[in-house]
């Protein structure tokens, strides 16, 4: 989904997230389609930033099923998207604990583990873009998550802290460290 579509979808034409939730609760199934269409790609990107590769669609689907099943637990204090991210993150962590998604355990901890090769690299033809992608891939997992939410989604530090389970201050530090690392890698 492109940015333009993302923005055109939201608020003005189709109603706010809160309105769509109300409409879905009163039986309008199309409201769920609009909500999923509005947020699915962002959730998918977030799930990818958590290090999930092969089961992104499954995690995204589970996230929405879980969210809609417990929609009354969404109190509107945060954006719906942030809430979806917290659900997705919990699903990924739970799955790793139960090892349902095998082979993804590498990035649970934000230690020294870095991804030296990202399979998406190979799909990106443009040289400048490939370098950028490579730079992002070399961030630590937490840096990459925070950076993705900050730059890819434009989320505030508060929202990022909620989504990735950290503090606002830590999110800011992660973002600036990530930005510095990326600039250094691109300047090389």
């Amino acid at each position, binding site marked *: 989904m492109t940015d333009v579509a993302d923005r055109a979808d939201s608020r003005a034409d189709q109603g706010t997230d809160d309105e769509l939730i109300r409409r879905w609760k009163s039986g309008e199934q199309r409201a769920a389609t609009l909500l*999923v269409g509005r947020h699915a*790609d962002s959730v998918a990107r977030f799930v990818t930033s958590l290090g999930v590769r092969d089961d992104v669609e499954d995690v995204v689907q589970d996230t929405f*099923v879980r969210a809609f099943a417990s929609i009354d637990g*969404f109190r509107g204090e945060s954006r719906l998207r942030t809430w979806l991210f917290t659900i997705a993150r919990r699903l990924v962590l739970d799955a790793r604990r139960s090892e349902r998604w095998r082979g993804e355990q590498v990035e649970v901890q934000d230690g020294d583990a870095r991804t030296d090769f990202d399979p998406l690299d190979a799909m990106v033809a443009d040289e400048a873009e490939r370098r950028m992608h490579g730079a992002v891939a070399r961030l630590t997992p937490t840096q990459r998550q925070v950076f993705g939410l900050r730059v890819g989604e434009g989320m505030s530090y508060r929202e990022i802290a909620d989504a990735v*389970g950290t503090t606002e201050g830590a999110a800011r530090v992660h973002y600036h460290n990530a930005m510095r690392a990326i600039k250094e890698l691109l300047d090389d």
Partner: protein
Amino acid sequence: MTDCPDGAVRDLLPELVNDRLAPDVRRRVDAHVRDCADCQQEVELLRALRASLRRVSVMDVGTIVSAIPAYRAPRRSWGGWRAAAAIMLLAVGGTSVAVLQRENTAARDGGVSAVAPSGRGTSPIAQPSRAPTLPAIQHPAPELALGNPAIDELNDRELATLLAELETLEAFPSPDEDRSADLVVPSPAGTD
């Protein structure tokens, strides 16, 4: 590439490129960026990085939506059953045991089996197994409840209070306890 010395503005540039700044803040940041070569470079880089980050995956909306169960209001279905049963307990008081026994006998004699409230969901998450531990109680409950005007007039809040009080008595089992623990997703505002 050098960093702009105005850290506050620089910190807002990701929200600028995502069009998420409030109008007044946006005007201030725009005015700064117009005159700042460092910020212009950083905005350019952020735009490119953003495009790169957003290139990933296009989800199949239809598949996801087809897995989402229809909405179930908490009190209308499952909660409603418990409310009705709770009312019955209050309404008939000490005679409830007798009613229960009679109903059990009737069910046995007439071959009528109580039907557990069923989830309408399609996914395993939305359709947990939850067999009520007092199945016989739900059948007679509505008639008895309707027969008591005072309890008929309880609003939702009063019903909730009533239920909460009944819960503390432990006179009433909560078959959905496991499920609620499974489904509750904390609001992000509650973290930290």
